[in-house]
């Protein structure tokens, strides 16, 4: 067991998979010799060399096209899109090419690839380098969508993503890169589509993802001092979505609150809320509450960004509203 940062866990996960399978390759802007702009791939280039760790031009379409063509012909590429906001310049390759090709060819083309991307706010970068876009990905049939919240999960879910036979978008939350956690020694491989219950409580179910998980846990601490015990579920992946874990928790608590970093409209919590409303209505003893970033681009100034993103106080207030 070693304590390690979320950023170091990314390199550890990539290294674990590249050492295991010679078909795993890494490509992206600055991922090689420079070790990545977030220093999340430090050491990978030194270990595996320039053939398997390829620095690319600033050509997001070319990066993802190369990953796709390589995946359909026998490799298992891990491509990096530096900031998830940049998906907007290569969304065709993601949404039209990678997501649809297996289906259109009736299963002839396999695309075992992973696209990693720095996602989300909290780092004062302004609206074009801060958005949480996991909900964009979730809206496209044919993409799996993963967003880990702990260093341990970074390793285990990245391994699962690399080994998965389908394309996986792997969102690394930028605000978590410096956070630390224990990571067991040896190989770690998780399963996609399994949520983790991070805290057990009888009064309400709080469902969160990535950076919102530690925030929901902080809110749970505060609520506990007020006599309210909440369950905190870390979804870990949006596709596949672990409805079973959420629904069975809601059956026990009667209350559901989602905590989302994405802007309000069509955030992932809306999907979770609609499923629970449609399938588990009679388990609910209060309104479903969604705590989200308001429907605005993210501002840069710390005071404004903090005011926009879900805070511990807003999560506490959201749980209280559901319990009323």
């Amino acid at each position, binding site marked *: 067991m070693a304590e390690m940062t979320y950023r170091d866990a990314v390199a550890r996960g990539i290294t674990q998979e590249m050492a295991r399978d010679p*078909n795993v390759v890494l490509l992206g802007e600055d991922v090689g010799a420079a070790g990545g702009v977030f220093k999340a791939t430090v050491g990978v280039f030194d270990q595996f060399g320039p053939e398997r760790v390829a620095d690319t031009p600033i050509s997001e*379409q070319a990066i993802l*096209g190369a990953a796709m*063509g390589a995946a359909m012909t026998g490799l298992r590429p891990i491509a990096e899109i530096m900031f998830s906001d940049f998906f907007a310049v290569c969304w065709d390759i993601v949404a039209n090419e990678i997501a649809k090709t297996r289906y259109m*060819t009736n299963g002839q083309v396999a695309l075992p690839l992973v696209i990693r991307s720095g996602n989300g706010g909290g780092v004062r970068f302004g609206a074009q380098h801060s958005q949480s876009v996991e909900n964009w990905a979730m809206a496209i049939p*044919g993409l799996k969508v993963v967003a880990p919240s702990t260093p341990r999960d970074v390793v285990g879910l990245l391994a699962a993503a690399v080994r998965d*036979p389908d394309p996986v978008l792997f969102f690394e939350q930028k605000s978590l890169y410096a956070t630390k956690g224990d990571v067991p020694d040896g190989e770690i491989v998780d399963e996609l589509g399994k949520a983790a219950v991070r805290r057990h409580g009888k009064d309400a179910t709080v469902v969160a993802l990535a950076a919102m998980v530690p925030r929901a846990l902080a809110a749970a601490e505060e609520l506990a001092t007020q006599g309210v015990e909440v369950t905190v579920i870390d979804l870990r992946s949006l596709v*596949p979505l672990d409805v079973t874990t959420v629904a069975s928790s809601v059956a026990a608590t009667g209350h559901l609150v989602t905590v989302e970093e994405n802007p309000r409209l069509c955030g992932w919590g809306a999907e979770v809320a609609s499923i629970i409303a449609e399938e588990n209505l009679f388990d609910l003893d209060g309104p479903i509450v969604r705590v989200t970033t308001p429907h605005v681009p993210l501002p840069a100034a710390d005071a404004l960004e903090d005011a926009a993103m879900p805070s511990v106080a807003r999560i506490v207030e959201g749980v209280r509203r559901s319990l009323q």
Partner: protein
Amino acid sequence: MTTPLAQQLAQQTATRPATPPAAAPAPGTPPVQAPPEAVRLRLYQMMVEMRDFEKRAYDLFLQGLVKGTSHLGLGQEAVAAGFGAAMHPGDYTFATYRGHNHTLARGVQMAPVMAELMGRQSGLMAGKGGSMHLTSVAHGMMGSYAIVGAHLTIANGAAWSSKLRGTSEVAVCFFGDGATNIGAFHEALNLAVVWQLPVVFVCENNRWMEYTPISSVTAVAHPAADRAAAYGLEPLLVDGNDADATYAIASAAIGRARAGGGPSLVEAETYRHGGHSRADPGKYRPEEEVQAWLGRDPIPRYRQRLLDAGIDEAVLVSIEEQSRRAVDAASSAAEASPPPDVSLVGANVWADGGASWRR
């Protein structure tokens, strides 16, 4: 330093008189050595089959049996045949929505292609993709892509994979003149050169995008060839209506890629005989232009050349008869196939064969 391909081709002895095309020959098109007779007969057969297949597809479209849309390569067969004949079995083809001919060129049977156009169970992809997405991985036909330009980047990936795995497949990527103005074209060309990938980019310049001439929206006269220098590539222009010429340049470019010599960008000058898609009569094109290019139809032109070279007409007639029979058989087989089972709606989103997104 490799000898420029244009020079290599020019060094070969020209054994045929340059047939004067109705329009000016492509500047820089070198005279070409005739391929062996067996290859020439194969080229002729491929072109005749493509032509017969697509004419039938058009008839079936007018009868309402081919649904949706289809983009015919009528008039552009010499490009598909020349490159198809020069490719090795394991090589990778990446085509556009105008991909029927490129699919047939890889040896895919006519019947499943026709059935795919008709939305039938026996279709190449059981009706899941349709005319614009013909794919047969078993034949190296790695897909037909309908977002202009995207597949140039994907072809790079297949070529990169071949290089990393240390195998010898070459990727050949076909696209229209219109694709040269989209960002993906430029991203793909640059990366292919930087990584020295075994990929050949083939621009089929048929002078028109959908309903607008390429010349009216492009900064240079030759939309692909004039951009080659920007990526350190030699400009390669070829008469795309001359199967000997396309075969020669394809062999040279593919051979160079296979030998580790890196990518090429070829511009094949050609013309589509019909409209852009479906029942478009293509009336926006000047009549003299259409007539001039019909006069350069690659198939009768090649037929005459083979006769001039002393090939017995009976051999050509037998190729033509066989092709007609093959198309008849393919369309009957396709028409006899039932529509796909509706359970296919939920099939093959994922590798497990299904479409489930929840646990």
